[in-house]
């Protein structure tokens, strides 16, 4: 990471002892709303003792909460993980206003600035859903907005892929510790996400294993940080619907893609639409709808890197750089070998994180 994170955190802990307790409580799996009154009544040592004895039920948490904050800061430094407290400037402003928002977030990379939209859906998606999610991810990135999703299998991963494919930035909110590569097949995608200037965040401290019950709460971060939630494919029961319902509770507009009536993987979206979610049909339709909420797409394109979004064909390269087709083809091939561009079909796109 380019920012010197650890001296920052260590210094802050020295300056503000409360931050240290908040960090310790987070490691103990306890929200400070519950812990801070204890802190007031019993003092630091007493609070930790009481939390260790009663507040945290499980042995792991009991031991975890006792580890001093400074030691934690050292561990996080080793992992390259930053901590952003609620109330910090770096904490996503929209999320900070939400009730029940996490007290602090563990962050890899840096949370990109700008309006954000979430794309969520089922893990067991059809290729139709996967393609659509990728297209949405691309469209959102091309508009210069931030894409938030959960890096899960299926729709989430496809949306992230669409974003990184066109060099956009995104945020993945995990339901486990940041040091755990879950799901394992998305390890490369994680790296690409970070390389393209995105962030991977979690409210859970490093070392937290992925457990089913941790995922619904993380969905409130996805919907809370986004200005709109787009559901691509979802069954009636599932994480995507939890996110959508949380979003509705939080007053975040929800969009859903209609599907076949009677098809289980479309039922969630169809129900959302019946209950008042905005139907969206295709990527351009989505962008048109989102513009009303997120504002006009950022003009991140300039003539120089216009092709970053559309890709460049050998022919276009030849015309725009006054080369022969042969030279253009050779140039693009060399760039591909060097890892600067990637090819999809007959077009070349800037490789994710290749110094744009």
């Amino acid at each position: 990471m380019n920012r010197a994170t650890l001296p920052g955190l260590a210094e802050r802990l020295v300056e503000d002892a409360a931050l240290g307790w908040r960090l310790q409580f987070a490691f103990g799996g306890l929200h400070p709303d519950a812990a801070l009154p204890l802190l007031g009544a019993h003092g630091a040592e007493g609070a930790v003792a009481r939390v260790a004895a009663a507040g945290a039920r499980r042995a792991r948490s009991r031991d975890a909460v006792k580890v001093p904050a400074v030691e934690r800061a050292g561990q996080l430094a080793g992992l390259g993980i930053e901590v952003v407290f609620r109330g910090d400037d770096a904490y996503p402003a929209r999320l900070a206003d939400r009730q029940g928002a996490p007290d602090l977030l563990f962050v890899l990379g840096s949370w990109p600035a700008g309006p954000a939209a979430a794309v969520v859906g089922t893990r067991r998606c059809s290729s139709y859903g996967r393609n659509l999610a990728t297209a949405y991810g691309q469209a959102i990135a091309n508009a210069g907005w931030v894409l938030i999703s959960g890096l899960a299998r299926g729709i989430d991963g496809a949306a992230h892929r669409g974003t990184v494919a066109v060099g956009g930035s995104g945020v993945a909110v995990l339901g486990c510790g940041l040091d755990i590569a879950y799901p394992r097949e998305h390890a490369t995608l994680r790296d690409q996400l970070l390389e393209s200037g995105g962030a991977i965040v979690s409210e859970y401290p490093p070392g937290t294993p992925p457990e089913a019950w941790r995922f619904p709460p993380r969905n409130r971060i996805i919907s809370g940080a986004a200005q709109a939630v787009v559901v691509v494919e979802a069954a009636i029961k599932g994480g995507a619907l939890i996110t959508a319902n949380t979003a509705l509770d939080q007053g975040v507009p929800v969009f859903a893609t209609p599907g076949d009536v009677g098809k289980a993987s479309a039922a969630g979206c169809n129900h959302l639409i019946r209950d008042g979610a905005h139907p969206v049909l295709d990527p351009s339709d989505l962008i048109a709808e989102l513009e009303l909420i997120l504002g006009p797409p950022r003009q991140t394109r300039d003539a120089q890197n216009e092709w970053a979004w559309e890709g460049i064909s050998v022919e276009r390269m030849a015309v725009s750089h006054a080369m022969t087709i042969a030279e253009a083809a050779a140039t693009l091939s060399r760039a591909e070998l060097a890892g600067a561009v990637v090819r999809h079909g007959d077009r070349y796109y800037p490789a994710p994180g290749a110094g744009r």
Partner: protein
Amino acid sequence: MFAKVTSVALVGVDPQPVDVEVHVTNGRSVFTIVGLPDTAVREAKERVRAAFRNSGLHFPGGTVVVNLSPADLPKAGSAYDLPIALGLLAAIDDKHAAAARVVALGELGLDGALRHIRGGFGAALLGRRLGLPVVLPAEAAADAAVLEGAEVFGAGTLGEAIQVGLGRGVPAAPRTASGESPGPDLAEVRGQGGARRALEIAAAGGHHILMSGPPGVGKTLLARCMPSLLPALSPEDQLEVALAWAAAGLSRFGMLAPPFRSPHHSATLPALIGGGSGVPVPGEVTLAHRGVLFLDELGEFPAPLIDSLRQPIEDGHVVVARKGSTITYPSAVQLIAATNPCPCGFLDDGGQLCICSQRAIDRYRSRMSGPFLDRFDLRIHLSRVAHDRLAGPPGEPSSTVRARVIAARKRQQARGSLNSKLARAEIDELAWEDAAVRRLDEAVDVNRLSPRGWERVRRVAATIADLDESTVIADGHVSEALAYRVT
């Protein structure tokens, strides 16, 4: 009383002489044909008998025996009617003995009229070899008369055919080459500069090329332009092509443009590679000999059909096994294939969304077997982009491109053979610059190239260097070649 007339049987595309021997003796009134005739040949006796009567000739009483020799060569079809009739006439009447000194082929109508048959071109070739005049039905004669050095006579009736051997025939006028066109011109293709270039390279090196892309990007049009980029057929090639076509009953001689065949994906196996029940006929792969075989919608071809093409394309000939014999047809073709990337066609398209399930895509791809795809030196992807079409300068006409192709082919022929036909050791011996070798190594290192792909890219790079009139194969040539290998 005995007479002998020479006729022809096609073995594969090769015309073999068949002696039609006729023997007439006194005795029971019997007409027998021996020498492995098929039903159509056996029925000749009825046609010959009627044609004789209706031409005002006397059909002999007594025993008539016709032997088709060599006896072990299967003879089929109605084309032996005319030689049998001529032989019979010569056998019964010394005045007409000269009528048998011809190479004859033709079907007789009951009224004595001569009807069109296939294989006339083979008869002309045989006549030239044996120094005999050739008698054919008028239409077949016009096709065959194109062959230089052959004395070809056309006849409308049995009566006219008799006159030929007696020296009173009228030489057939060669059919004038109809306004042939080598297909569309490359100038008609707007944009798609990368694909045009790849096509030029394919033409220059004789490389097989696979184009994938959504419907409507111009894959078919590009493929149809291919014959216009290739050098004209040499006289020997023209003869080979004409023989192959004659075996299928088609006429194609004096045409300079390489043939272009585009079988539909519903074609049967015999229609594609040759054979079939009864008389074996050459398939599309043989009709495309010395030319272009274009497989449009490759993904729609059934897998067995595609696999059956592998050996003919690799070997340049196709062997059709028949009961008791095998027949070899030539099949030296340049292969062009076009395919959608997936069943709906829009995978990897910039604009439209692909609606195929991953399973459907996998199934579609698995039809095109890996070993078959490996035959393609060039594999390119085309996409529909409005700006690409409009951005390009107006396309170069085929004639300009063909000039470069011919120059590049001359360089290759000076070395030996086309780059696509070079053996691996021969490629090693080409003049590789160090930087080019390093570039290839780099491509393998970053997993951009499989060992097989490495081999293919080297051939293509050699052709690019030839087009570039370069004596060495440089980094730029290799780099460009890599661009035409979509994985």
